[in-house]
């Protein structure tokens, strides 16, 4: 028998003028690191790092489920709402969680759409963060598929979504973690993956904001897997080149969900990224 150090709780914050009950998990002590999951998934993607004693020895990792995802319910009235994530709502959600949990300038580590919003926050609200780890993140990715495939009455969006994103998982990923990663997509609520992809594939507003990121105050390090077909190494390098002072590492044997699909392979890259982030004075316990 073993009991993991991860603990889960709920916080209610106000987003878009209405309360949202957000599920979050945390583990460790020290410098706070707020972790953002990918589209169509949830906090479980971070569980390996949160169970990694070397990471949590001096870092407090916090991850939360976006509304509509995992254990965070959709807002009241969702049954008649078309879920379409926007940059504005996403930013408001992250900032509300930072404030609600009293996090003092956490490092923001986001993957895929989480990496995209991390770069948006680096450009627009850097004063709330100590640094940014943008994983499988780029300036803009138009869809190379039809996002409407993933929400239709005659097929299972979760199964189709999982089959699509399997294209982004490295053949080096352990088989069990490949399927654990895909399971989250299979479980995603109807229309949620589509609504996330709407943000990811249609909003190109980050492109014009990259140059205003001040890495002298808040460092930006990008991590990208060679097997990521959605955000390729070329996409990440182009994005890093547009941010003065940003750095990028290519992970040869990893794909689009590195912390989830191949935690051991990702671990050294994440530790290196953390080492690149500054130590700020006061850290919330």
């Amino acid at each position: 028998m073993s009991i993991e150090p991860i603990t889960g709780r709920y916080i209610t914050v106000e987003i878009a003028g209405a309360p949202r009950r957000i599920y979050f998990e945390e583990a460790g002590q020290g410098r706070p690191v707020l972790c953002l999951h990918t589209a169509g998934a949830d906090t479980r993607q971070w569980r390996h790092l949160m169970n990694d004693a070397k990471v949590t020895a001096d870092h407090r990792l916090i991850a939360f489920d976006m509304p509509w995802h995992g254990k965070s319910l959709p807002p009241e009235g969702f049954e008649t709402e078309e879920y379409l994530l926007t940059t504005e709502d996403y930013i408001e959600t992250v900032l509300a969680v930072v404030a609600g949990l009293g996090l003092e300038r956490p490092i923001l580590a986001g993957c895929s759409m989480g990496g995209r919003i991390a770069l948006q926050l680096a450009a627009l609200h850097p004063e709330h963060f100590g640094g940014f780890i943008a994983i499988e993140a780029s300036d803009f990715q138009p869809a190379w598929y039809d996002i409407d495939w993933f929400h239709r009455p005659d097929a299972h969006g979760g199964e189709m979504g999982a089959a699509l994103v399997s294209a982004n998982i490295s053949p080096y990923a352990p088989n069990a973690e490949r399927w654990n990663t895909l399971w989250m997509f299979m479980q995603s609520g109807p229309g949620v993956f589509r609504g996330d992809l709407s943000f990811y594939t249609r909003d190109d507003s980050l492109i014009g904001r990259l140059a205003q990121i001040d890495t002298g105050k808040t460092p930006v390090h990008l991590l990208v897997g060679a097997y990521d077909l959605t955000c390729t190494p070329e996409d990440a390098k182009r994005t890093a080149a547009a941010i003065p002072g940003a750095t990028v590492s290519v992970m040869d044997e990893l794909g689009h969900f590195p912390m989830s699909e191949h935690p051991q392979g990702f671990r050294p890259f994440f530790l290196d990224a953390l080492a690149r982030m500054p130590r700020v004075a006061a850290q919330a316990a």
Partner: protein
Amino acid sequence: MIDRFREIATRLEDQPHLLRLGRLFSETVLIEIEGDEIYLTFDTGRIVSVVAGPSRKTPWRFALRTDADALEQFWQARPAPGFHDVFGLAKIGRGRIDGDILSLVKNLRFFKEVMALARCKEEAAA
């Protein structure tokens, strides 16, 4: 190359989970390799015929058009980036998928894993 697809058809018979996943899939798929046509006809998840073209009279639901080297790379145990997935071939410009794409997407896991049955070794993943 057609022998590789006959091998896939044989291996599919030993994959009960794929036969279950494909139980509603009864379509013909065109595989075109540098202009050479191969028609795979599925019946409730089984490949019941592997027929070489050319044919102007065989209807097909969707097609994967690629080249022999790309397929051989796809069938490596650990393919290089882009060659590791059917959609990857399209993304890197080494393949094209056309026809009824929605039919493919509805059966995407099934089709991908069937195509990967010719992979080199036991730990190969779809």
